[in-house]
C-alpha cells in the first residue's frame, strides 16, 4: 500500500540549500508511486514566491521547477495562510502553479492550496513519513 509522504519546507530559498535540495528529493520521490504532498509554512512560503531573480546573487533560479511538478504527478502543494499573513504576503505573491487533471479531460487545476494552520496540522497528522528541510 502506498504511504503518505510529506515534504515539510520551513526555510526561505537561497539563504541556505535546503529548499533546492528538498525539491531534488521530491522529484525523485515522484517515481515511487507514493502519495506525495508538499507543505510550505513559516519562511518556506518564499520557496514558491513569484518573481524569484537570484541572478545578481550568482545563483540559479530553480523556482520554475515547481511548475513542472504536476507533470510528475505531484499536485498537492499546501501553503499555510497564517505564514503568508505574518510575512505580509497574500496568495497573489505566489507562483500560479497548476497541473493537468487527467481524470477531468486534462483541465488545468491549481496545485497550490492555501489552507489554515488548523488544516495544516491535520494534514501533518495524516502522514506516514515526514521529511523535514
Amino acid at each position, binding site marked *: 500500500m502506498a*504511504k503518505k*509522504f510529506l515534504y515539510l519546507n520551513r526555510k526561505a530559498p537561497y539563504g541556505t*540549500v*535546503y529548499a533546492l*535540495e528538498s525539491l*531534488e*528529493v521530491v522529484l*525523485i*520521490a515522484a*517515481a*515511487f508511486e*507514493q502519495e506525495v504532498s508538499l507543505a510550505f509554512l513559516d519562511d518556506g512560503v518564499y520557496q514558491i514566491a513569484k518573481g524569484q531573480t537570484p541572478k545578481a546573487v550568482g545563483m540559479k533560479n530553480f523556482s520554475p521547477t515547481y511548475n513542472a511538478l504536476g507533470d510528475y504527478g505531484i499536485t498537492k502543494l499546501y501553503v499555510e495562510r497564517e505564514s503568508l499573513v505574518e510575512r505580509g504576503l497574500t496568495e497573489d505573491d505566489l507562483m500560479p502553479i497548476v497541473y493537468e487533471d487527467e481524470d477531468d479531460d486534462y483541465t488545468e487545476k491549481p496545485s497550490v492550496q492555501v489552507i489554515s494552520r488548523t488544516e495544516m496540522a491535520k494534514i501533518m497528522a495524516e502522514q*506516514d*513519513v*515526514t*521529511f*523535514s*528541510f
Partner: protein
Amino acid sequence: MKYTIMVNEGPYQHQSSDSALQFVRAALEKGHEIFRVFFYHDGVNNGTRLAVPPKDDRMLQKEWSELAEKHGLDLVICIAAAQRRGLMDASEAKRQGLNADNIASGFRISGLGQLIDGGIESDRTIVFGD
C-alpha cells in the same frame, strides 16, 4: 521496530550527527533494526575518511564507520549532495576524472531513491538536521 535515519548536517558544525549517532546506538541497544542511515545536504561530510580531529575530540566519521561494521549498518551518502561537496568513492572519482577518493569505510554512495525506499520500508523515519 525498523528505522530509517536521515542526517542532514556535517559533523562538528552542528550537533545533528552526534544526536543521530546516539539515537542509533540507543535504538540498537534496545534491539531495534536500523534499516538505513541516509546522509543528505552537508550530512554527506560525515562520510569522509580524511578528517583528523584533535586527539581529545570525538571522531564522528570513524564512529559511524565502526558502528556500521559492528552492526552491519547501511550508511548511504546521497550522490547528488556528495558531488556538490566533493565526497567521492573510487568509482565515482574515476567517472568524474578525479585523482582521489575520500569515502570512509562502511559508507556507500547512492541515489536519493534510497531515502524514499527507506521511508517505505521502515516503521519510523527520523530526521536529524538544522
